[in-house]
């Protein structure tokens, strides 16, 4: 028997029993819809976690801290300082895309008559691109940059006119990319000098010209920071330390500002306090995190929060999936029932087609195909219904969780999320389950003896 003939015959057979076929398809449709919507709720929860965490900082980044360098790990290994060599080692861990030290430094910025303290992060410009730092204006750092910098969107609020008698901040619309920008390691630069104030006799430091190439968009992490190439920051740091030595005399003097150095100047041996590691894909984050921790460093990633959230919601998601599967099993029993009914009804007919030459294979195919059609239509309509239900859920913001308590409800929060793979999986599952439900009845139809089938009224 030709495939196409089997196809049309099976459709005709279903069409003969319109009402029953329709009811069965509705059953499968609701089953598919239940399973898809339940899974979509769980997926939306996870998606919300990830979205919110990404807003806190990239989820594929690991912050590494060397607080405890010089100490020992719990199993007695010495924790080495976080040097360039160590960071290169981290960068070679499987799954790591790049790693950069973070060198912090406080300097003073001057823009025209306004000055302000700035918090500089020196990072490797090659790695900068990987960190997904949002740039709202201009460009990010690229390799080859030296005295270029990108500044956080709120850095301008730190600028004020020190010569004025009252609080005189820089104007709201100041565009640092267009201004002539200077930085200096003399933290008193531009200040009024009062008699008797320490350092009043100091010699002048010539400020350095820098170029602001980009503004960092609102990120929560870098709003008040300035990011510059690592090498430049290293240079300024040395200069600043040298200057402070001269000005205040060793470590005994009055130190101004937040010094992030570990005291002495030999950065290379001391290692950095901090590093950022970018991981290639979200699945490797936990593993890389573990390896860095094994080296003795403190390592943090938003993924840890994600894992926790996922664990907390796992139970709920399992219950949701369970409800969906139950609904679908009921639908599958409906299919099996419909097929059995139609076999009893058509017993004589099966006998007739056997007599006139239908092979067992043909009969099995006809019945399986009937079940398959129910599955396909039920599946496709079920997906349609799920999309409608999903839209409704999202519109009315019916939420089952997935919010991080201490974060404000973000826009774009979803109640139900149906990715394309879920649609395909839902329809595919419906089709396969229908075939399975049709298998038993099809076998029965196949095994009917000709004479018995013919005698049946």
């Amino acid at each position: 028997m030709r495939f196409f003939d089997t196809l049309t015959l099976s459709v005709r057979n279903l069409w003969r029993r319109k009402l029953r076929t329709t009811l069965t398809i509705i059953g499968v449709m609701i089953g598919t819809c239940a399973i898809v919507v339940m899974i979509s709720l769980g997926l939306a929860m996870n998606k919300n976690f990830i979205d919110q965490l990404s807003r806190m900082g990239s989820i594929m980044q690991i912050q590494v801290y060397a607080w405890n360098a010089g100490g020992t790990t719990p199993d007695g290994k010495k924790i080495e300082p976080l040097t360039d060599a160590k960071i290169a080692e981290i960068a070679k861990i499987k799954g790591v895309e790049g790693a950069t030290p973070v060198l912090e430094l406080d300097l003073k910025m001057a823009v025209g008559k306004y000055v302000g303290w700035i918090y500089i992060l020196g990072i490797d410009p090659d790695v900068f691109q990987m960190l997904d730092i949002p740039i709202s204006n201009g460009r990010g750092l690229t390799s080859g940059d030296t005295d270029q910098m990108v500044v956080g969107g709120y850095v301008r609020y730190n600028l004020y006119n020190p010569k004025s008698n009252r609080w005189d901040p820089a104007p709201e619309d100041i565009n640092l990319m267009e201004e002539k920008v200077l930085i200096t390691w003399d933290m008193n630069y531009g200040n009024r000098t009062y008699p008797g104030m320490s350092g009043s006799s100091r010699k002048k430091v010539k400020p350095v010209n820098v170029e602001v190439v980009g503004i960092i968009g609102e990120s929560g992490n870098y709003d008040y920071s300035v990011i510059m190439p690592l090498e430049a920051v290293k240079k300024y740091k040395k200069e600043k330390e040298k200057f402070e030595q001269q000005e205040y005399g060793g470590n005994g003097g009055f130190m101004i500002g937040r010094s992030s150095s570990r005291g002495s100047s030999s950065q290379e041996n001391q290692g950095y306090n901090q590093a950022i590691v970018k991981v290639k894909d979200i699945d490797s984050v936990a593993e890389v995190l573990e390896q860095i921790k094994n080296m003795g460093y403190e390592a943090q990633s938003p993924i840890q929060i994600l894992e926790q959230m996922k664990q907390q919601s796992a139970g709920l998601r399992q219950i949701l999936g369970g409800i969906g599967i139950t609904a679908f099993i009921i639908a599958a029993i409906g299919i099996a029932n419909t097929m059995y009914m139609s076999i009893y009804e058509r017993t004589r007919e099966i006998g007739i087609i056997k007599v006139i030459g239908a092979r067992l294979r043909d009969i099995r195919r006809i019945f399986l195909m009937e079940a398959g059609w129910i599955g396909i239509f039920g599946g496709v309509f079920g997906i349609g219904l799920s999309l409608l239900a999903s839209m409704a859920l999202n519109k009315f913001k019916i939420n089952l969780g997935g919010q991080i308590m201490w974060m404000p409800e973000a826009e774009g929060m979803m109640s139900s999320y149906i990715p394309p793979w879920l649609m395909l999986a839902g329809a595919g599952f419906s089709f396969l389950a229908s075939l399975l439900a049709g298998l038993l009845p099809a076998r029965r139809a196949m095994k009917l003896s000709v004479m018995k089938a013919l005698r049946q009224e």
Partner: protein
Amino acid sequence: MSAIITLDNVYRIFRMGQERIYAVNGISLTIEEGEICCLQGPSGSGKSTLLHIMAGLDRPTKGSITIGNTRIDKLSENQLALFRQKHIGFIFQSYYLIPTLTALENVALPLTFCGVPRSKRIKMAKELLEAVGLKDRMKHKPSEMSGGQQQRVSIARAFVNNPKVVFADEPTGNLDTVTTHEMMQLMTSLAYERKQTLVMVTHNPELSDYCTRIVRVRDGKIEKIENGRDNGYETENA
């Protein structure tokens, strides 16, 4: 003429509780090619069971059945289905048409299972329906036709794939006298024209006139074999 169906010592035994019923009790019979053979006997004589066994719809308890060169008692269920597709046509007392299909579709159905393409099988089915005189009833469903017309459709269906042997089980049992004779004329002339063998079961003695041979069955055994009109059509047409 050569033998087309050979039965050798065939038994069919049913068990009813402790009792064994010999529906077919050791029958040996040879049917020649082109014969129109009639199995006659009272109810319960085992003639229908014999026919079903010959057609491969039922299996013998013992003995062998050969059609052409094929031992059909040795075939598997699937091989039997293929064999029926190619070599056997069947006509029933109650027509056994598919109620949801039109006359044309009913006739074309056996060809569907053979894998004949649609256009070709529609053409073949039309030819046969014309031959049985139902040219203007092709698009009708069985429920819209009289008993005689339904039996014509069923005859067309049995002949459509040009089988070697056509079996008929009380083909006129549900029809009035006039229609009965029409049907017998139709079947025998179709079989004769196409050089096919026709084996039928009937308890109507009047129909003996249409047959070349009459096999009388009683209690599962052959009682008597009579020669009917000796190839009557040959003389009639000569």
